[in-house]
């Protein structure tokens, strides 16, 4: 098996003490970030990205990815103990995790969650290992029209599977708009700069992301602080040996549910634009529908913990695949990791697999090891992690803010970026409150340049005819799928209208 040989080489590259240390440091940071309410994994990765510029690429990637994996485990703890999800993808696990905690089974819920997170992540890592090369060789045959079609899938997902389609559309347009500021990619003409040199450099997406997520979250939490009461925590956060075995058994009893949820999560994660959050909700919904006791859901069913956790960890892993193979991130966190890959001097895409096999395969090897590390730390040190929650807000908030400002500055050594962090923090707070999804904005800002390039090159190839997307054998099915995603909200609206009309007319007949 070629994939196994490559994976072995990846493990060999990773087995360097300093690389392993950075990987573990990432996992621990991620766990902390996941536990602290108000700092999600996305924020954690964004804030620490600038620091990794000064590291060796393999260490940098495994550390940042470790933060992502760690935050997936950490978010579980706060969701179950306090009903305060540290990450958007930890919301679904709260529905049943919280009732279990109220019944005094917090330890069991957490242990089952940790085990199944590990299980989901490992299934996804195995799929990742074997899918990566075929995926990359298929992607090598992609021309601009195919690239554009896949990009449209990413944005179609935000519109079709997100909440408010109109608001997602606006956010995508605004993200693209920000990415257009600066020099035109083809002709070199300045666009939307209004004669300012400062604007000519364009908007770097790191300060924008740190502002929207980091400062935006701090402000949003500040306004809602009066609602949240964190109770006595350390008592509830004990994980006994009994809980650990019982949690493991619960996962084994629901082996097929966990496997199914992990597969669903992986596929959703690969879909560019979807990521871990919708995957966790979908798995929760599916588990409830398929359960023999759907009425137990929401009242402390262990299946309600197992399904979303397996799915979100698998989706997180899956979302890295299109980022590495196509240069199209599956989630905002993957988008930030992609910016890192650029900064460390590589170009994400199918050629990465042939030109930098060490880099790619040591990352894939780190998937296995980071998750193992995260599981072991979680099972042994949960009370310590929960202690983090007792850190007073008056200390935590300034630390997050300062790290955000540091991260914003370090990326390009520009004071302008520090102001951008603050400005986008305020914008993020308002948009978040009005229910605008922030992820499409970030992903559009990152993908603005490749999207425009793919669109213009395709149209040049076809001499201006948009039919090119539908006549090429590879791009046609992808483009049609993207169109369906874009039109999904309209279909749903139409169906509701028709049903409402049918109901109104029925009594008269």
């Amino acid at each position, binding site marked *: 098996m070629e994939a196994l040989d490559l994976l072995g080489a990846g493990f060999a590259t990773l087995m360097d003490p300093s690389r392993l240390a950075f990987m573990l440091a990432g996992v621990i940071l991620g766990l902390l970030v996941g536990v602290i309410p108000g700092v999600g994994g996305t924020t954690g990765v964004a804030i620490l990205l600038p*620091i990794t510029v*000064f*590291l060796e690429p393999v260490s940098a990637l495994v550390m940042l990815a470790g933060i992502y994996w760690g935050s997936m485990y950490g978010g579980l703890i706060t969701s179950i103990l306090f009903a305060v999800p540290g990450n958007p993808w930890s919301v679904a696990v709260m529905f049943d995790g919280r009732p279990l905690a109220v019944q005094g089974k917090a330890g069991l819920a957490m242990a089952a969650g940790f085990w199944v997170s590990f299980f989901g992540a490992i299934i996804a890592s195995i799929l990742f290992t074997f899918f990566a090369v075929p995926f990359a060789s298929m992607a090598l045959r992609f021309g601009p029209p195919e690239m554009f079609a896949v990009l449209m899938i990413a944005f179609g997902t935000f519109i079709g599977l997100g909440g408010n*389609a*109109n*608001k*997602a*559309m*606006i956010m*995508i*347009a*605004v993200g*693209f*708009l920000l990415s*257009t500021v600066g020099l*035109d990619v*083809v*002709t070199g*003409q300045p*666009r*939307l700069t209004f004669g300012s040199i400062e604007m000519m450099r364009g908007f770097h997406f790191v300060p924008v992301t740190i502002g929207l997520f980091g*400062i935006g979250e*701090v*402000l949003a939490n*500040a*306004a*809602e*602080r*009066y609602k949240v009461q964190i109770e006595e925590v350390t008592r509830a956060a004990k994980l006994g040996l009994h809980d650990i075995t019982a949690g493991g058994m619960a996962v084994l009893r629901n082996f097929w549910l966990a496997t199914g949820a992990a597969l669903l999560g992986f596929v959703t994660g690969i879909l560019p634009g979807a990521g871990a959050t919708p995957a966790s909700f979908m798995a929760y919904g599916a588990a409830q529908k398929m359960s023999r006791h759907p009425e137990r859901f929401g009242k402390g069913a262990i299946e309600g913990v197992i399904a979303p956790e397996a799915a979100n960890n698998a989706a997180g892993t899956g979302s890295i695949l299109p980022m590495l193979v196509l240069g199209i991130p599956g989630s905002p966190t993957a988008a930030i990791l992609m910016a890192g890959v650029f900064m460390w001097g590589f170009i994400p895409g199918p050629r990465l697999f042939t030109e930098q096999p060490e880099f790619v395969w040591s990352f894939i090897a780190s998937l296995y090891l980071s998750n193992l590390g995260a599981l072991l730390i979680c099972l042994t040190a949960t009370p310590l992690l929960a202690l983090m929650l007792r850190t*007073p*807000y*008056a*200390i935590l*908030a*300034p*630390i997050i*803010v*300062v790290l955000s*400002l*540091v991260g914003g*500055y*370090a990326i390009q050594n520009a*004071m302008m970026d*520090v*102001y951008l*962090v*603050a400005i986008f*923090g*305020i914008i993020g707070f*308002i*948009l978040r*409150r*009005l229910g*605008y999804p922030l992820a499409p904005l970030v992903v559009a800002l990152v993908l603005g340049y490749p999207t*425009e390039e793919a*669109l*213009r090159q395709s*149209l*040049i190839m076809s001499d*201006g005819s948009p039919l090119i997307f539908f006549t090429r054998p590879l791009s046609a099915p992808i483009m049609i799928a993207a169109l369906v995603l874009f039109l999904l909200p309209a279909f749903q609206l139409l169906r509701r209208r028709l049903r409402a009309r049918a109901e109104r007319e029925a009594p008269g007949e």
Partner: protein
Amino acid sequence: MTPIWLRASYRTVEIGTVSVFLLLGMVLFYESMRLGPGWGDSGPQPGFFPFVLTVCLVSGLAGVIYVDILRRPDNRPFFEVSQEVSDLLKVGIPILVAVALIRWIGMYVTAGLYLGFFMAWYGKFRWSSALAGGLIFSGALWLLLREGFNISMPMSVFYRSGTLPF
């Protein structure tokens, strides 16, 4: 009489946001017209993509105006209680002050001052703990960024005049 910030509803804020986006859309449209929205000698002109964006933005805005402002407006107050506003300002204003200070006193001093101030003022810590917190934070940042990773940070005016090392 309720203060004005408690009377603003979600709908009011939504109208404000949509107006800003509309303004952005107008700027974008103007710019795409200036750059040429159509077909040039060698393919789409630079203004083509902004023009497509204008269409996307305006169609999304039309949807929001129709659904969220006209058909199903959310008339709940944007801030439920005045404590929300005061909490927000108590956290937000120090952030803005800190951002403004960085230019003058550098990242490291600002970080310590901000943390110390916030601990003492918002967290009601004793001034000695706040002072210690600020010093430790500044020191830790210095060790991590300056000594550890050698990342350059904004320095104070005293650094530039050569009187202080940070």
